[in-house]
Each structure stands twice: as C-alpha cells, then as structure tokens.
C-alpha cells in the first residue's frame, strides 16, 4: 500500500499544521475587521447604550438628565399625569404621530416599489453597455444635498411656485392649489428622496435574472402577466426585500423632508424626537421615543422577512 509511507505521526502533523494555518488565517481575518468593529462599537453600540440609559433617567430642567432612575419617559409616551389630581390619563398624541409616520413610510414603500420596479426592469433589459449610464442617472440626485433638493421641491409646489404659476397662467385654476405644508407635500418629498434606494437594489437583482427563464416560461404557455408574477417577481425577491427595507426604515425616521414640506404642522417621528432634545428639553422622553421606534421597526422587520422568505419557498 502506498499510504503506508505516511505514518500516523506525519498525518497528524499535517493535520495540526493545517489547523494552525486555519487558526492564523482566522486571526488575521479578525484583525482585518477590527477597524470596522471599533467604528461600530464607538459610534453605533455606545450611543445606543447611552440612549438606553438616558431613557430611564429624569429630565433636567434645562435639558440634559439627572442621575435618578425613572420609567416616566415610557409612561409619558402613552399617559399624562394630571397636574391637579395626579391621576394617569391615556393620551394617544404620540401614538397618533407614530401611526401616521408608519402610514407615510408604508405608502412611500409601496409607491416606490410600483414606480421603481418598471424602472429597474427597463434598466436591466438595456444592452450591458448602456446600463451603467442608467445607474449613473439614478444616482444623480445624490450629488447634491437632500436639504437643498427638498427646498427646491418647496419652490415648485408652493402657492407662488412653478406648478401653481403655470396652472394660473394657463387658466386651468383661478386661485393657487395649496400643496405645501400638507400631507401630500410630505408624501411627495418622501417619494422623491427614497425612490433611488428602491431602484438600485431592484436593478441589481433584475440584472442578474436569467432572461432565458423568461423565454422558458413563455414557451410553457405563460402569458406576459403570468411570466411577471410566476417567474420575474419571485426571482427578484431579494431585491424587492432589500429595496423595501432601504426605503421603509429611513422613511419612518425621516426628519428633514417632513420638517420642511410639512412645515412642522404635520409631525412625523423624526421631528417629534428632535423636539424633545430641542424646545421640549426632555431628553429621557426623546430617548424613550427613539427606542420605541427601534423596537417597532425590529418587530415589523421580523414579520416582513418571515412572510416574504416563506413566499419565496413556495414559489
């Protein structure tokens, strides 16, 4: 037998050497990830811990916190202590703002998906040389600041703005349509801000789609609609999930857009939390509101991912 020349000791030595090599390469890999881990730790986890701790403290009169344990911040989210008889009263004001923000985020996500899918499909079906140009066009908005772009929208939709001026000049209307500082304005701003975040993951998913599968489905008597629902959409699910997450989560916490286009009249979660650290001077409440938002997002995500991944499996 030729293997007899390999004694057990050489074999185990070889194995040992291999194990050591694996160990050192694992150590090296860990070392490579160290900068990222430090950044995540210092600027991601640490602030989160601070927020968590602050949410269980008492607000100091001029902002900041007093080091005294309290769960008031969480109580105050849903209840208000009556000033006179000290009883707890259910006040859904914050909850309504949260629900409204969820609604905005959901509508934004759905409309972005409906608009983004055909766009991404169009891009993915262009000749390969053209595709990068389309991707570049989609990223053009990122070249300038969101604040500036949002202000530009303001100039377009305000009473003396581009749209109203044009409609008045054409005689379609005789007094301007109020669009600025309405829910419509916020929704428009959110759609505008987040559409690229839907298109790009959808595109990267659709670009990888094997269009021979589409041909195969046509060949097997699937109509255009059936090809879309039975082949293209199931196969681009990873992009749909990624796009929805990338739109929904930031839309839920959007700050600049609702502030400018909603004029502070129609509050969203972002403005609400910011208020607690500004004029509200209630840091613990702000921290509690932020954590409640995070918890809500996590729960929503959990159900979303579980449902959609289930659907992928059943085809």
């Amino acid at each position, binding site marked *: 037998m030729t293997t007899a020349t390999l004694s057990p000791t050489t074999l185990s030595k070889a194995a040992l050497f291999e194990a050591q090599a694996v160990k050192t390469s694992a150590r090296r890999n860990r070392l490579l990830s160290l900068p990222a881990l430090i950044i995540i730790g210092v600027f991601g986890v640490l602030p989160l811990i601070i927020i968590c701790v602050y949410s269980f403290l008492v607000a100091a009169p001029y902002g900041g916190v007093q080091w005294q344990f309290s769960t008031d911040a969480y109580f105050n989210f849903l209840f208000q202590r009556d000033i006179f008889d000290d009883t707890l009263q259910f006040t859904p004001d914050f909850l309504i703002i949260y629900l409204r923000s969820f609604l905005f985020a959901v509508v934004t996500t759905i409309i972005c998906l409906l608009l983004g899918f055909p766009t991404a499909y169009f891009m993915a079906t262009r000749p390969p040389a053209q595709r990068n140009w389309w991707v570049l066009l989609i990223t053009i908005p990122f070249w300038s600041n969101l604040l500036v772009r949002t202000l530009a929208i303001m100039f377009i939709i305000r009473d003396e703005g581009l749209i109203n001026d044009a409609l008045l000049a054409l005689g379609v209307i005789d007094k301007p349509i109020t669009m600025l500082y309405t829910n419509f304005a916020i929704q428009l701003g959110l759609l505008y801000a987040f559409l690229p975040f839907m298109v790009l993951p959808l595109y990267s998913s659709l670009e990888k789609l094997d269009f*021979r*599968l589409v041909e*195969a489905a*046509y060949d*097997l*008597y*699937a109509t255009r609609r059936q090809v879309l629902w039975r082949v293209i959409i199931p196969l681009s699910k990873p992009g749909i999930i990624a796009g929805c997450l990338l739109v929904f989560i930031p839309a839920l916490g959007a700050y600049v857009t609702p502030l400018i286009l909603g004029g502070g009249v129609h509050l969203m979660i972002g403005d609400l939390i910011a208020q607690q650290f500004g004029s509200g001077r209630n840091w613990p409440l702000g921290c509690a509101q932020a954590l409640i938002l995070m918890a809500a997002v996590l729960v929503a995500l959990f159900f979303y991912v579980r449902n959609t991944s289930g659907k992928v499996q059943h*085809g």
Partner: protein
Amino acid sequence: MPEQPGKNAIEVRGVRKVFGTGENQVAALDTVSVSIRENEFFTLLGPSGCGKTTLLRLIAGFDFPTAGEILLHGQDIAPLPPYKRPVNTVFQSYALFPHMTVAQNIGFGLEMLGKPKDEIEARVAQMLKLVKMEALKARRTSQISGGQQQRVALARALAPQPKVLLLDEPLSALDYKLRKEMQIELKRLQNETGITFIFVTHDQEEALTMSDRIAVMSAGKILQVGTPRDIYDRPAERFVADFIGETNFLPGTVVSKQAGVATVKFASSATISAGYPEGFDPTGEVTLVVRPEHADLVPDPAKGTITGTLSNIVYFGTDTHYHVKLDGGGENFIVRHQNSRSSAVTYETGIKVGVQFEEDAARVLKD
C-alpha cells in the same frame, strides 16, 4: 420531392431572418424552406453560426421571421407569440426555474394552460416516471446533477403534450458517457411519445445516430436534407461531405458522363467512374470525394487506381488510418482499415502503396 401538406408537422416556407439594421445587417437565415414530417426525429446540423438555432427560435416563437411562413399542421404560426404555439423547447442551458421543485417545474406548462389540479398531478407523476425522476420530485433544481436537470427539462417540455418538441443542443453540456446514454434515452422518449422532435446540434455523430432525417446547414442556408445514410453516402455538396465524417478530396477531370455517372481521369491518367447529385452538371476540373473506409490499400502500387507513399499509420483501436502521400501531390489521402485478429498484410511507413476504390466509392461534388 413535394410533400403532402397534411403529413407535415412543420413546414418552413421561404423564411428569412435578418438581425440588425442598416450596415450591421446580418442574414442569419437566407430564404430557408424545409418540411418536417409528423413523428419524425429531425435534426438541424451545422457549425455554430449557421442559423440552426435561429430557425429553432423562429419555430418556437422567440423571434419572428423577416419574411416567409412557418406552418404547423398547415396553419401559419409565424405571427403567434410563444405561449400560443403548441410547441415546447428544451433549452441548451435547461432554463429550469430555480425557485420551484422538480415537480413544480414539470407541472408549470400544464398549470399555465389552466388544467385542473388532479390532471396536472397525474400528468406530472407520469412524466416523472417517464424520465425516471420520481425519487427526486421534491428537490430544488439546484440540488440535482446536470444529467438529472436534463431529464427534468425534457419532462417539463413534454408534459403539455406539444405537437412538436424543439431541442436546442440539449446534450452539449453533458460528459461523453452521459451524452451517449441520453442519446438513447431521447430516441426512446421520441418513440414512446410519438411527438415530432426537432433537434439542433453541431455534433455530426449525434445527428447520424439519432435522426430519421437531417438537414445540413451552413451560412444561413440548408444545403441538404436526407436520411443519415443519404447524407453520409451521397453528400450533395463538398461542405456536407467535409462536415460529416472524414473525407478525402481528389482533383480530377471529367472525360465523359451519362445517366448520373461521370468518368473522371486523374493526373496519373487512371480513370474512375463516379456518381454525382441530381441537378448538377459536372464538367472540366472537378473534386472527387471518397470516404476513408470506402478505399483500400494494396501492397503492389501497380494494382492501385492511385499510388503514393505511406507517410503515417495511426492506430485507433477499432481501426487504423493509413495516410498516403499521393504521387501527384496535394493533401494526404486517408484509408481507414477495420482492425481484425487476422490482418494478413502489415504495412510500414515509407513504402510505396496503391489505393483501390470500392464500387461507387467516389462521387463528384459541387464545391
């Protein structure tokens, strides 16, 4: 010969397909006409870029002809989209749906046709049995081997009982042994289902062993249609002879001809009678083709029709190839000799030999 229209599964009439526009125009198919009979195993054979896959895609409906008609049982299907044609395709890449199981893949066509659930289940079970994949029906298509994927692709295309099955080089991705197995398997499936198969390949051996009839294509044209024996023994053109099997080409001059047989004189002034295809009128300088196995070596050069020096002997196991450097010059002439236990004469390279031709071995062909 004209065919009766009712007997043809597919009739391609004057089909042209041009890709691109303006200066970049390329005619992938240049006015092709061919009739494919019912229950036939028909092969489109040709080198890559000859238009065979284009013709298949036109029949499937993935592309539409620039001109001409495609009839399916006498009805023009050229303008119909693929989902309205009772024709299914087995793709070169298989194109199985990765998000579905083996059984779901096979049932997809029937489901799209809106068949009732129990009918789909029964048919899928029958198909799984036909391709011997019952044990793997719940697997994802990514979890099965290439050969198994091939079977699923076949079952998926056969499940809706198409009038015609199109196969686009379906065996090219398989290794040699599996390919041999699948060739037999395909032939069996065709016999059992009685469906017309149109098979595209560039592999002449595959075409010869499996087909009822073969169409040899080159540069967007069909050069010859016939049974494997027709194509091999009586190639109509030099390209066909060259593409299918090994062939020797010999220059000669036509001395006389009558009733499809020409007398051709070699440079050595030896003559030979050679048949030629219908509709071809050979005159003057012509090329003769002779298959290597239709010629024989003789040790005495004086007894050979042509003579030369044995330059190389290549042993192939089942047979031996003798390369003869002809006295008149030109390409080496190859003689194939089947090996047997009692080969009487042994040859050595460097000796003078003669080459004799069997009756009807030589043919005069169009260049």
